Protein backbone atom coordinates (compact mmCIF):
# COMPACT_ATOMS: atom_id res chain seq x y z
CA UNK A 1 0.00 0.00 0.00
CA UNK A 2 1.23 3.45 -0.88
CA UNK A 3 0.68 5.90 1.95
CA UNK A 4 -1.26 9.16 1.63
CA UNK A 5 1.84 11.34 1.95
CA UNK A 6 3.51 9.28 -0.75
CA UNK A 7 0.58 9.93 -3.06
CA UNK A 8 0.45 13.61 -2.17
CA UNK A 9 4.15 14.07 -2.85
CA UNK A 10 3.77 12.34 -6.17
CA UNK A 11 0.90 14.62 -7.09
CA UNK A 12 2.86 17.74 -6.13
CA UNK A 13 5.85 16.74 -8.23
CA UNK A 14 3.69 15.86 -11.20
CA UNK A 15 1.92 19.19 -10.88
CA UNK A 16 5.23 21.08 -10.87
CA UNK A 17 6.28 19.20 -13.95
CA UNK A 18 3.03 19.90 -15.70
CA UNK A 19 3.19 23.57 -14.63
CA UNK A 20 6.07 24.08 -17.09
CA UNK A 21 3.85 22.96 -19.94
CA UNK A 22 1.03 25.07 -18.51
CA UNK A 23 3.22 28.19 -18.50
CA UNK A 24 4.27 27.64 -22.09
CA UNK A 25 0.75 27.02 -23.28
CA UNK A 26 -0.42 30.06 -21.28
CA UNK A 27 2.18 32.30 -22.89
CA UNK A 28 1.27 31.05 -26.33
CA UNK A 29 -2.41 31.63 -25.53
CA UNK A 30 -1.83 35.21 -24.39
CA UNK A 31 0.29 35.92 -27.46
CA UNK A 32 -2.31 34.45 -29.79
CA UNK A 33 -5.35 35.99 -28.14
CA UNK A 34 -3.79 39.45 -28.13
CA UNK A 35 -2.33 39.31 -31.62
CA UNK A 36 -5.40 37.79 -33.28
CA UNK A 37 -7.49 40.99 -33.27
CA UNK A 38 -4.64 42.77 -35.05
CA UNK A 39 -4.22 39.97 -37.56
CA UNK A 40 -7.96 39.86 -38.19
CA UNK A 41 -8.21 43.62 -38.60
CA UNK A 42 -5.17 44.11 -40.84
CA UNK A 43 -4.46 40.66 -42.26
CA UNK A 44 -0.88 39.35 -42.52
CA UNK A 45 0.10 41.67 -45.38
CA UNK A 46 0.71 45.01 -43.67
CA UNK A 47 3.10 43.41 -41.16
CA UNK A 48 5.42 42.43 -43.99
CA UNK A 49 4.76 45.39 -46.26
CA UNK A 50 7.62 47.39 -47.70
CA UNK A 51 6.86 50.50 -45.62
CA UNK A 52 7.80 51.29 -42.03
CA UNK A 53 6.70 50.63 -38.52
CA UNK A 54 4.81 53.82 -37.83
CA UNK A 55 1.68 53.02 -35.83
CA UNK A 56 1.39 56.53 -34.42
CA UNK A 57 1.26 58.26 -37.78
CA UNK A 58 -1.64 60.66 -38.25
CA UNK A 59 -4.07 59.44 -40.88
CA UNK A 60 -2.54 56.21 -42.08
CA UNK A 61 -0.55 54.30 -39.50
CA UNK A 62 1.71 51.56 -40.90
CA UNK A 63 2.68 48.38 -39.14
CA UNK A 64 5.47 46.80 -41.13
CA UNK A 65 7.75 44.60 -39.00
CA UNK A 66 10.10 44.07 -41.92
CA UNK A 67 12.76 46.58 -40.89
CA UNK A 68 12.73 45.25 -37.35
CA UNK A 69 13.09 41.69 -38.69
CA UNK A 70 16.09 42.90 -40.68
CA UNK A 71 17.43 44.52 -37.54
CA UNK A 72 16.99 41.34 -35.52
CA UNK A 73 18.63 39.23 -38.22
CA UNK A 74 21.51 41.66 -38.50
CA UNK A 75 22.24 41.71 -34.81
CA UNK A 76 21.72 37.95 -34.42
CA UNK A 77 23.80 36.87 -37.40
CA UNK A 78 26.48 39.40 -36.53
CA UNK A 79 26.55 37.99 -33.02
CA UNK A 80 26.92 34.46 -34.33
CA UNK A 81 29.66 35.39 -36.79
CA UNK A 82 31.59 36.65 -33.80
CA UNK A 83 30.49 34.21 -31.09
CA UNK A 84 30.57 30.85 -32.88
CA UNK A 85 34.27 30.82 -33.84
CA UNK A 86 35.31 32.31 -30.51
CA UNK A 87 32.99 30.04 -28.52
CA UNK A 88 33.92 26.83 -30.33
CA UNK A 89 37.62 27.62 -30.06
CA UNK A 90 37.22 28.33 -26.36
CA UNK A 91 35.31 25.07 -25.98
CA UNK A 92 38.04 23.18 -27.84
CA UNK A 93 40.59 24.78 -25.54
CA UNK A 94 38.66 23.79 -22.41
CA UNK A 95 37.95 20.26 -23.62
CA UNK A 96 41.22 19.38 -25.32
CA UNK A 97 44.06 21.64 -24.36
CA UNK A 98 43.53 23.13 -20.92
CA UNK A 99 45.20 21.45 -17.96
CA UNK A 100 42.83 20.49 -15.12
CA UNK A 101 43.59 23.60 -13.10
CA UNK A 102 43.14 25.87 -16.12
CA UNK A 103 39.75 24.27 -16.66
CA UNK A 104 38.85 24.77 -13.00
CA UNK A 105 39.85 28.40 -13.39
CA UNK A 106 38.04 29.19 -16.65
CA UNK A 107 34.77 27.32 -16.25
CA UNK A 108 33.48 29.45 -13.34
CA UNK A 109 34.43 32.56 -15.32
CA UNK A 110 32.28 31.38 -18.21
CA UNK A 111 29.43 30.90 -15.74
CA UNK A 112 29.93 34.38 -14.30
CA UNK A 113 29.82 35.79 -17.84
CA UNK A 114 26.47 34.03 -18.30
CA UNK A 115 25.22 35.76 -15.17
CA UNK A 116 26.11 39.35 -16.10
CA UNK A 117 22.82 41.31 -16.24
CA UNK A 118 22.06 42.47 -19.75
CA UNK A 119 21.60 46.04 -18.59
CA UNK A 120 25.17 46.05 -17.30
CA UNK A 121 26.43 44.82 -20.65
CA UNK A 122 24.29 47.47 -22.33
CA UNK A 123 25.86 50.10 -20.15
CA UNK A 124 29.31 48.85 -21.12
CA UNK A 125 28.28 49.06 -24.77
CA UNK A 126 26.99 52.55 -24.32
CA UNK A 127 29.96 54.11 -22.58
CA UNK A 128 32.89 52.03 -23.86
CA UNK A 129 32.07 50.28 -27.10
CA UNK A 130 29.93 52.97 -28.77
CA UNK A 131 32.53 55.76 -28.61
CA UNK A 132 35.20 53.30 -29.71
CA UNK A 133 33.19 52.14 -32.73
CA UNK A 134 32.34 55.75 -33.62
CA UNK A 135 36.02 56.66 -33.56
CA UNK A 136 37.32 53.60 -35.41
CA UNK A 137 34.74 53.78 -38.21
CA UNK A 138 34.46 57.54 -38.18
CA UNK A 139 30.73 57.61 -37.43
CA UNK A 140 28.54 60.18 -35.75
CA UNK A 141 27.25 57.57 -33.38
CA UNK A 142 28.54 54.18 -32.33
CA UNK A 143 25.01 52.99 -31.57
CA UNK A 144 24.83 50.49 -34.40
CA UNK A 145 23.95 46.91 -35.28
CA UNK A 146 27.66 46.16 -35.00
CA UNK A 147 27.74 47.27 -31.38
CA UNK A 148 24.65 45.21 -30.58
CA UNK A 149 26.07 42.16 -32.40
CA UNK A 150 29.26 42.19 -30.33
CA UNK A 151 27.43 42.47 -27.04
CA UNK A 152 24.78 39.90 -27.90
CA UNK A 153 27.60 37.67 -29.10
CA UNK A 154 29.22 38.02 -25.69
CA UNK A 155 25.93 37.05 -24.10
CA UNK A 156 25.60 33.99 -26.34
CA UNK A 157 29.19 32.88 -25.64
CA UNK A 158 28.57 31.01 -22.36
CA UNK A 159 25.79 28.95 -23.96
CA UNK A 160 27.95 28.13 -26.96
CA UNK A 161 31.07 27.37 -24.92
CA UNK A 162 29.32 25.12 -22.41
CA UNK A 163 27.35 23.09 -24.95
CA UNK A 164 30.15 22.87 -27.50
CA UNK A 165 32.52 21.70 -24.78
CA UNK A 166 30.07 18.95 -23.83
CA UNK A 167 29.84 17.92 -27.48
CA UNK A 168 33.62 17.85 -27.92
CA UNK A 169 34.18 15.94 -24.68
CA UNK A 170 31.62 13.35 -25.83
CA UNK A 171 33.71 12.46 -28.91
CA UNK A 172 35.14 8.97 -28.27
CA UNK A 173 38.80 9.13 -27.32
CA UNK A 174 39.46 6.30 -29.78
CA UNK A 175 39.18 8.81 -32.65
CA UNK A 176 41.79 11.02 -31.06
CA UNK A 177 44.12 8.11 -30.41
CA UNK A 178 43.74 6.91 -33.99
CA UNK A 179 44.62 10.34 -35.32
CA UNK A 180 47.61 10.79 -32.99
CA UNK A 181 48.88 7.29 -33.76
CA UNK A 182 48.85 8.17 -37.47
CA UNK A 183 51.24 11.01 -36.77
CA UNK A 184 48.61 13.71 -36.41
CA UNK A 185 49.54 16.67 -34.26
CA UNK A 186 47.21 17.67 -31.47
CA UNK A 187 46.20 20.64 -33.57
CA UNK A 188 45.33 18.52 -36.61
CA UNK A 189 43.46 16.08 -34.39
CA UNK A 190 41.30 18.82 -32.91
CA UNK A 191 40.43 20.52 -36.21
CA UNK A 192 40.17 17.52 -38.51
CA UNK A 193 38.78 14.82 -36.23
CA UNK A 194 37.37 15.98 -32.92
CA UNK A 195 35.46 19.08 -34.00
CA UNK A 196 33.99 17.48 -37.15
CA UNK A 197 32.93 14.46 -35.06
CA UNK A 198 31.22 16.83 -32.61
CA UNK A 199 29.63 18.78 -35.43
CA UNK A 200 25.97 18.18 -34.63
CA UNK A 201 26.47 19.12 -30.98
CA UNK A 202 28.43 22.21 -31.97
CA UNK A 203 25.72 23.26 -34.41
CA UNK A 204 23.18 22.78 -31.64
CA UNK A 205 25.23 24.99 -29.35
CA UNK A 206 25.27 27.68 -32.03
CA UNK A 207 21.50 27.36 -32.47
CA UNK A 208 20.85 27.71 -28.75
CA UNK A 209 23.21 30.67 -28.65
CA UNK A 210 21.21 32.09 -31.52
CA UNK A 211 17.98 31.51 -29.60
CA UNK A 212 19.49 33.52 -26.77
CA UNK A 213 20.56 36.28 -29.15
CA UNK A 214 17.26 36.67 -31.00
CA UNK A 215 15.21 37.42 -27.94
CA UNK A 216 17.78 39.63 -26.23
CA UNK A 217 16.18 42.99 -25.49
CA UNK A 218 17.76 45.28 -22.93
CA UNK A 219 21.27 45.35 -24.36
CA UNK A 220 20.20 45.91 -27.95
CA UNK A 221 17.68 48.52 -26.81
CA UNK A 222 20.53 50.43 -25.19
CA UNK A 223 23.21 50.14 -27.85
CA UNK A 224 21.70 49.85 -31.32
CA UNK A 225 20.16 53.30 -31.65
CA UNK A 226 16.68 51.98 -32.39
CA UNK A 227 16.09 53.64 -35.74
CA UNK A 228 13.27 51.91 -37.58
CA UNK A 229 14.74 52.75 -40.97
CA UNK A 230 15.90 49.86 -43.06
CA UNK A 231 19.52 49.15 -42.13
CA UNK A 232 21.95 49.24 -45.03
CA UNK A 233 25.07 48.02 -43.28
CA UNK A 234 26.31 46.74 -39.95
CA UNK A 235 27.27 50.27 -39.08
CA UNK A 236 23.69 51.52 -39.28
CA UNK A 237 21.41 52.00 -36.36
CA UNK A 238 18.78 49.25 -36.13
CA UNK A 239 15.74 48.41 -34.08
CA UNK A 240 15.17 44.75 -33.30
CA UNK A 241 11.78 43.13 -32.79
CA UNK A 242 12.41 42.73 -29.10
CA UNK A 243 13.56 46.32 -28.64
CA UNK A 244 10.63 47.51 -30.75
CA UNK A 245 8.18 45.86 -28.41
CA UNK A 246 9.93 47.17 -25.33
CA UNK A 247 10.02 50.72 -26.64
CA UNK A 248 6.35 50.92 -27.58
CA UNK A 249 4.65 48.78 -24.96
CA UNK A 250 4.96 51.42 -22.23
CA UNK A 251 2.69 54.01 -23.76
CA UNK A 252 0.53 52.13 -26.21
CA UNK A 253 -3.23 52.42 -25.89
CA UNK A 254 -4.59 49.22 -24.42
CA UNK A 255 -6.42 47.04 -26.98
CA UNK A 256 -5.66 49.43 -29.82
CA UNK A 257 -4.48 48.13 -33.20
CA UNK A 258 -0.99 49.28 -32.24
CA UNK A 259 -1.22 47.17 -29.06
CA UNK A 260 -2.25 44.09 -31.01
CA UNK A 261 0.44 44.72 -33.61
CA UNK A 262 3.06 44.57 -30.85
CA UNK A 263 1.74 41.17 -29.89
CA UNK A 264 2.10 40.05 -33.49
CA UNK A 265 5.77 41.01 -33.21
CA UNK A 266 5.95 39.06 -29.95
CA UNK A 267 4.34 36.01 -31.53
CA UNK A 268 6.81 36.15 -34.39
CA UNK A 269 9.74 36.25 -31.95
CA UNK A 270 8.27 33.36 -29.99
CA UNK A 271 7.88 31.25 -33.11
CA UNK A 272 11.41 31.96 -34.34
CA UNK A 273 12.95 31.14 -30.97
CA UNK A 274 10.79 28.03 -30.65
CA UNK A 275 11.85 26.78 -34.07
CA UNK A 276 15.53 27.43 -33.39
CA UNK A 277 15.41 25.67 -30.02
CA UNK A 278 13.53 22.73 -31.46
CA UNK A 279 16.10 22.34 -34.20
CA UNK A 280 18.92 22.53 -31.68
CA UNK A 281 17.22 19.88 -29.58
CA UNK A 282 16.89 17.54 -32.54
CA UNK A 283 20.60 18.00 -33.27
CA UNK A 284 21.57 17.28 -29.67
CA UNK A 285 19.43 14.13 -29.57
CA UNK A 286 21.18 12.86 -32.68
CA UNK A 287 23.90 10.67 -31.25
CA UNK A 288 27.32 10.87 -32.86
CA UNK A 289 28.20 7.82 -34.92
CA UNK A 290 30.38 5.42 -33.00
CA UNK A 291 32.31 2.51 -34.41
CA UNK A 292 31.15 -0.97 -33.50
Amino acid sequence: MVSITEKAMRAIFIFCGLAIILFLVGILYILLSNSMPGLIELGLGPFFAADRWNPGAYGEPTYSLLNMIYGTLKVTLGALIFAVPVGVSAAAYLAEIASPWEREFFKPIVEVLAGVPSVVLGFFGLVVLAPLIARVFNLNSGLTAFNGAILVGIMALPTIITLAEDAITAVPKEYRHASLALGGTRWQTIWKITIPAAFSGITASAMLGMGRAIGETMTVLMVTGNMVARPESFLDSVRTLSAGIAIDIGDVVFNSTHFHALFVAGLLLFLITFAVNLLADILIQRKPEVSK
Partner: protein
Amino acid sequence: MKMMQTNSNVTLEETRVQEDPKPESTKLETDVENEYCEVKVENLNFFYGSVQALFNVTIKVQEKGVAALIGPSGCGKSTFLRVLNRMNDLIPGTRLEGKVSIHGENIYTPNTDVVNLRKKVGMVFQHPNPFPKSIFDNIAYGPRIDGLKDKIMLSEIVETSLQGAALWNEVKDRLNEPALALSGGQQQRLCIARALAVKPRILLMDEPTSAIDPIATQKIEDLIRDLCANYTIIIVTHNMQQAARISDHTGFFLQGEMVEWGKTSSLFTNPEDQRTEDYITGRFG
Protein backbone atom coordinates in the same frame (compact mmCIF):
# COMPACT_ATOMS: atom_id res chain seq x y z
CA MET B 1 71.61 3.76 -39.68
CA LYS B 2 71.71 0.30 -41.21
CA MET B 3 75.26 -0.07 -40.03
CA MET B 4 74.44 0.28 -36.36
CA GLN B 5 76.31 -2.38 -34.45
CA THR B 6 74.44 -4.27 -31.77
CA ASN B 7 76.61 -7.17 -30.80
CA SER B 8 74.80 -8.32 -27.71
CA ASN B 9 71.95 -9.72 -29.71
CA VAL B 10 73.89 -12.04 -31.92
CA THR B 11 73.54 -15.33 -30.10
CA LEU B 12 69.78 -15.32 -29.90
CA GLU B 13 69.31 -14.14 -33.43
CA GLU B 14 71.72 -16.64 -34.88
CA THR B 15 69.93 -19.54 -33.28
CA ARG B 16 66.68 -18.14 -34.53
CA VAL B 17 67.79 -17.93 -38.09
CA GLN B 18 69.30 -21.37 -38.16
CA GLU B 19 66.18 -22.97 -36.82
CA ASP B 20 63.62 -20.78 -38.48
CA PRO B 21 61.53 -22.89 -40.82
CA LYS B 22 59.57 -19.93 -42.18
CA PRO B 23 60.34 -18.71 -45.73
CA GLU B 24 61.45 -15.20 -44.78
CA SER B 25 64.41 -16.57 -42.87
CA THR B 26 66.78 -15.76 -45.73
CA LYS B 27 65.82 -12.12 -45.57
CA LEU B 28 66.32 -12.13 -41.81
CA GLU B 29 69.75 -13.63 -42.25
CA THR B 30 71.05 -10.57 -44.05
CA ASP B 31 69.61 -8.41 -41.33
CA VAL B 32 71.39 -10.40 -38.72
CA GLU B 33 74.62 -10.03 -40.61
CA ASN B 34 74.15 -6.29 -40.46
CA GLU B 35 73.16 -6.70 -36.84
CA TYR B 36 70.66 -4.01 -37.44
CA CYS B 37 68.11 -3.57 -34.70
CA GLU B 38 64.64 -2.38 -35.56
CA VAL B 39 63.54 -1.99 -31.97
CA LYS B 40 65.91 -2.12 -29.05
CA VAL B 41 64.74 -1.68 -25.48
CA GLU B 42 67.20 -1.73 -22.62
CA ASN B 43 66.39 -1.87 -18.91
CA LEU B 44 63.00 -0.29 -19.33
CA ASN B 45 61.10 0.62 -16.20
CA PHE B 46 57.72 2.25 -16.62
CA PHE B 47 55.52 3.93 -14.03
CA TYR B 48 51.93 5.09 -13.88
CA GLY B 49 52.35 7.69 -11.16
CA SER B 50 53.87 5.72 -8.29
CA VAL B 51 52.78 2.33 -9.64
CA GLN B 52 55.45 0.52 -11.57
CA ALA B 53 54.04 -1.31 -14.58
CA LEU B 54 57.19 -2.58 -16.31
CA PHE B 55 60.33 -3.92 -14.63
CA ASN B 56 63.68 -3.92 -16.31
CA VAL B 57 62.46 -5.04 -19.74
CA THR B 58 65.17 -5.67 -22.32
CA ILE B 59 64.29 -6.78 -25.81
CA LYS B 60 65.64 -6.60 -29.32
CA VAL B 61 63.37 -6.98 -32.29
CA GLN B 62 64.84 -7.58 -35.74
CA GLU B 63 63.55 -6.10 -38.94
CA LYS B 64 60.52 -7.71 -40.61
CA GLY B 65 58.60 -10.66 -39.23
CA VAL B 66 56.10 -10.86 -36.41
CA ALA B 67 56.88 -10.54 -32.75
CA ALA B 68 54.08 -11.52 -30.39
CA LEU B 69 53.76 -10.42 -26.78
CA ILE B 70 51.69 -12.71 -24.60
CA GLY B 71 50.78 -12.82 -20.96
CA PRO B 72 47.80 -12.56 -18.63
CA SER B 73 45.69 -9.40 -18.41
CA GLY B 74 47.40 -6.51 -16.71
CA CYS B 75 50.88 -7.95 -17.21
CA GLY B 76 52.12 -4.81 -18.96
CA LYS B 77 52.24 -6.06 -22.55
CA SER B 78 49.96 -3.30 -23.87
CA THR B 79 51.82 -0.72 -21.82
CA PHE B 80 55.02 -1.96 -23.39
CA LEU B 81 53.55 -1.72 -26.87
CA ARG B 82 52.47 1.88 -26.28
CA VAL B 83 55.97 2.73 -25.09
CA LEU B 84 57.17 2.09 -28.64
CA ASN B 85 55.10 4.85 -30.27
CA ARG B 86 54.88 6.99 -27.15
CA MET B 87 51.11 6.72 -26.90
CA ASN B 88 51.61 6.52 -23.14
CA ASP B 89 52.49 10.21 -23.33
CA LEU B 90 48.73 10.84 -23.45
CA ILE B 91 48.30 9.48 -19.94
CA PRO B 92 49.23 12.11 -17.37
CA GLY B 93 51.75 11.16 -14.71
CA THR B 94 53.57 8.40 -16.58
CA ARG B 95 57.33 8.06 -16.26
CA LEU B 96 59.96 5.99 -17.97
CA GLU B 97 63.50 4.84 -17.17
CA GLY B 98 65.87 3.05 -19.49
CA LYS B 99 66.52 3.31 -23.19
CA VAL B 100 64.17 2.71 -26.08
CA SER B 101 65.66 2.91 -29.57
CA ILE B 102 63.96 2.51 -32.89
CA HIS B 103 66.16 2.29 -35.98
CA GLY B 104 69.05 3.09 -33.69
CA GLU B 105 67.57 6.32 -32.43
CA ASN B 106 66.59 6.89 -28.83
CA ILE B 107 62.92 7.89 -28.96
CA TYR B 108 62.79 9.33 -25.45
CA THR B 109 65.01 12.34 -25.83
CA PRO B 110 63.78 15.92 -25.40
CA ASN B 111 64.40 16.44 -29.14
CA THR B 112 62.40 13.43 -30.29
CA ASP B 113 59.80 14.34 -32.88
CA VAL B 114 56.90 12.28 -31.59
CA VAL B 115 54.75 13.04 -34.62
CA ASN B 116 57.46 11.71 -36.91
CA LEU B 117 58.00 8.70 -34.70
CA ARG B 118 54.32 7.78 -34.95
CA LYS B 119 54.49 8.04 -38.73
CA LYS B 120 57.25 5.43 -38.68
CA VAL B 121 55.61 3.30 -36.02
CA GLY B 122 51.96 2.73 -36.90
CA MET B 123 49.39 1.34 -34.52
CA VAL B 124 46.24 -0.75 -34.76
CA PHE B 125 44.02 -0.74 -31.72
CA GLN B 126 42.03 -3.39 -29.91
CA HIS B 127 38.68 -2.01 -31.01
CA PRO B 128 38.35 -0.96 -34.63
CA ASN B 129 38.29 2.83 -34.54
CA PRO B 130 37.65 4.23 -38.02
CA PHE B 131 36.87 7.92 -38.13
CA PRO B 132 33.25 8.91 -38.76
CA LYS B 133 34.23 9.72 -42.35
CA SER B 134 34.09 7.91 -45.66
CA ILE B 135 36.29 4.89 -46.38
CA PHE B 136 38.40 7.01 -48.72
CA ASP B 137 38.82 9.85 -46.23
CA ASN B 138 39.83 7.41 -43.50
CA ILE B 139 42.71 6.04 -45.55
CA ALA B 140 43.65 9.45 -46.96
CA TYR B 141 43.73 11.05 -43.51
CA GLY B 142 47.37 10.22 -42.75
CA PRO B 143 48.79 11.35 -46.13
CA ARG B 144 46.59 14.45 -46.03
CA ILE B 145 47.78 15.64 -42.64
CA ASP B 146 51.24 15.02 -43.98
CA GLY B 147 50.46 17.71 -46.57
CA LEU B 148 49.55 15.62 -49.60
CA LYS B 149 46.78 17.29 -51.62
CA ASP B 150 47.15 15.73 -55.07
CA LYS B 151 43.94 13.78 -55.77
CA ILE B 152 45.54 11.23 -58.08
CA MET B 153 48.32 10.42 -55.64
CA LEU B 154 45.83 10.17 -52.80
CA SER B 155 43.69 7.75 -54.84
CA GLU B 156 46.76 5.65 -55.52
CA ILE B 157 47.70 5.52 -51.86
CA VAL B 158 44.13 4.62 -50.91
CA GLU B 159 44.08 1.80 -53.43
CA THR B 160 47.47 0.33 -52.55
CA SER B 161 46.76 0.61 -48.82
CA LEU B 162 43.40 -1.12 -49.14
CA GLN B 163 44.99 -3.80 -51.31
CA GLY B 164 47.73 -4.16 -48.74
CA ALA B 165 45.09 -4.76 -46.09
CA ALA B 166 43.16 -7.21 -48.34
CA LEU B 167 40.10 -4.99 -48.29
CA TRP B 168 40.21 -3.42 -51.74
CA ASN B 169 37.97 -5.95 -53.51
CA GLU B 170 35.30 -5.61 -50.86
CA VAL B 171 35.12 -1.81 -50.84
CA LYS B 172 36.41 -0.54 -54.18
CA ASP B 173 32.90 0.33 -55.37
CA ARG B 174 31.89 2.22 -52.25
CA LEU B 175 34.88 4.27 -51.21
CA ASN B 176 32.64 7.23 -50.45
CA GLU B 177 30.39 5.36 -48.08
CA PRO B 178 30.87 5.86 -44.34
CA ALA B 179 33.53 3.60 -42.85
CA LEU B 180 31.29 2.94 -39.87
CA ALA B 181 28.89 1.04 -42.15
CA LEU B 182 31.49 -1.73 -42.59
CA SER B 183 31.46 -4.88 -40.47
CA GLY B 184 33.73 -5.09 -37.43
CA GLY B 185 36.32 -7.22 -39.21
CA GLN B 186 36.30 -4.94 -42.25
CA GLN B 187 36.66 -1.93 -39.98
CA GLN B 188 39.73 -3.47 -38.41
CA ARG B 189 41.29 -4.14 -41.83
CA LEU B 190 40.39 -0.57 -42.74
CA CYS B 191 42.33 0.57 -39.68
CA ILE B 192 45.28 -1.53 -40.81
CA ALA B 193 45.02 0.01 -44.30
CA ARG B 194 44.84 3.46 -42.71
CA ALA B 195 48.04 2.73 -40.81
CA LEU B 196 49.73 1.41 -43.98
CA ALA B 197 48.85 4.60 -45.87
CA VAL B 198 51.36 6.51 -43.74
CA LYS B 199 54.06 4.06 -44.93
CA PRO B 200 55.33 3.01 -41.52
CA ARG B 201 58.27 0.68 -40.94
CA ILE B 202 56.81 -0.91 -37.86
CA LEU B 203 53.22 -1.84 -37.08
CA LEU B 204 52.09 -2.20 -33.49
CA MET B 205 48.91 -4.17 -32.96
CA ASP B 206 47.17 -4.19 -29.62
CA GLU B 207 44.97 -7.30 -29.51
CA PRO B 208 43.65 -6.49 -32.98
CA THR B 209 41.32 -9.49 -33.20
CA SER B 210 39.91 -9.62 -29.68
CA ALA B 211 36.80 -7.64 -30.64
CA ILE B 212 35.93 -9.47 -33.87
CA ASP B 213 34.55 -12.84 -34.94
CA PRO B 214 36.65 -15.95 -35.75
CA ILE B 215 36.32 -15.74 -39.54
CA ALA B 216 37.36 -12.09 -39.59
CA THR B 217 40.13 -13.02 -37.16
CA GLN B 218 41.50 -15.56 -39.58
CA LYS B 219 41.52 -13.01 -42.37
CA ILE B 220 43.49 -10.63 -40.22
CA GLU B 221 45.93 -13.34 -39.17
CA ASP B 222 46.52 -14.19 -42.84
CA LEU B 223 46.98 -10.52 -43.52
CA ILE B 224 49.55 -10.20 -40.73
CA ARG B 225 51.54 -13.08 -42.22
CA ASP B 226 51.46 -11.33 -45.60
CA LEU B 227 52.41 -7.95 -44.20
CA CYS B 228 55.38 -9.20 -42.20
CA ALA B 229 57.37 -9.62 -45.41
CA ASN B 230 57.50 -5.82 -45.62
CA TYR B 231 56.86 -4.59 -42.11
CA THR B 232 58.06 -5.33 -38.63
CA ILE B 233 54.94 -6.29 -36.73
CA ILE B 234 54.72 -6.37 -32.97
CA ILE B 235 51.44 -7.78 -31.79
CA VAL B 236 49.98 -8.03 -28.32
CA THR B 237 47.60 -10.92 -27.90
CA HIS B 238 46.16 -12.85 -25.02
CA ASN B 239 45.39 -15.67 -27.38
CA MET B 240 48.35 -18.02 -27.15
CA GLN B 241 47.28 -20.06 -30.16
CA GLN B 242 47.26 -16.87 -32.18
CA ALA B 243 50.79 -16.05 -31.08
CA ALA B 244 51.89 -19.58 -31.99
CA ARG B 245 50.18 -19.39 -35.38
CA ILE B 246 51.46 -16.08 -36.62
CA SER B 247 54.62 -15.01 -34.85
CA ASP B 248 58.30 -15.63 -35.40
CA HIS B 249 59.29 -14.49 -31.94
CA THR B 250 57.31 -14.44 -28.75
CA GLY B 251 57.80 -12.57 -25.53
CA PHE B 252 56.08 -13.68 -22.35
CA PHE B 253 55.17 -10.94 -19.88
CA LEU B 254 54.22 -11.56 -16.29
CA GLN B 255 53.52 -8.86 -13.73
CA GLY B 256 55.46 -6.26 -15.66
CA GLU B 257 58.48 -8.46 -16.26
CA MET B 258 59.57 -9.96 -19.54
CA VAL B 259 59.97 -13.51 -18.34
CA GLU B 260 61.11 -15.02 -21.60
CA TRP B 261 61.79 -13.89 -25.14
CA GLY B 262 62.70 -16.18 -27.96
CA LYS B 263 61.78 -17.98 -31.09
CA THR B 264 58.09 -18.81 -31.07
CA SER B 265 58.61 -22.49 -31.86
CA SER B 266 61.07 -23.02 -29.05
CA LEU B 267 59.19 -20.89 -26.53
CA PHE B 268 56.05 -22.91 -27.00
CA THR B 269 57.67 -26.34 -27.18
CA ASN B 270 60.61 -25.96 -24.90
CA PRO B 271 60.29 -22.94 -22.61
CA GLU B 272 63.30 -22.09 -20.51
CA ASP B 273 61.46 -20.55 -17.61
CA GLN B 274 59.15 -22.54 -15.36
CA ARG B 275 56.64 -19.66 -15.30
CA THR B 276 56.42 -19.65 -19.08
CA GLU B 277 55.78 -23.36 -19.06
CA ASP B 278 53.09 -22.97 -16.41
CA TYR B 279 51.40 -20.28 -18.46
CA ILE B 280 51.48 -21.95 -21.85
CA THR B 281 50.36 -25.27 -20.46
CA GLY B 282 47.41 -23.47 -18.91
CA ARG B 283 48.27 -23.79 -15.24
CA PHE B 284 47.33 -20.12 -14.74
CA GLY B 285 46.25 -17.06 -16.71
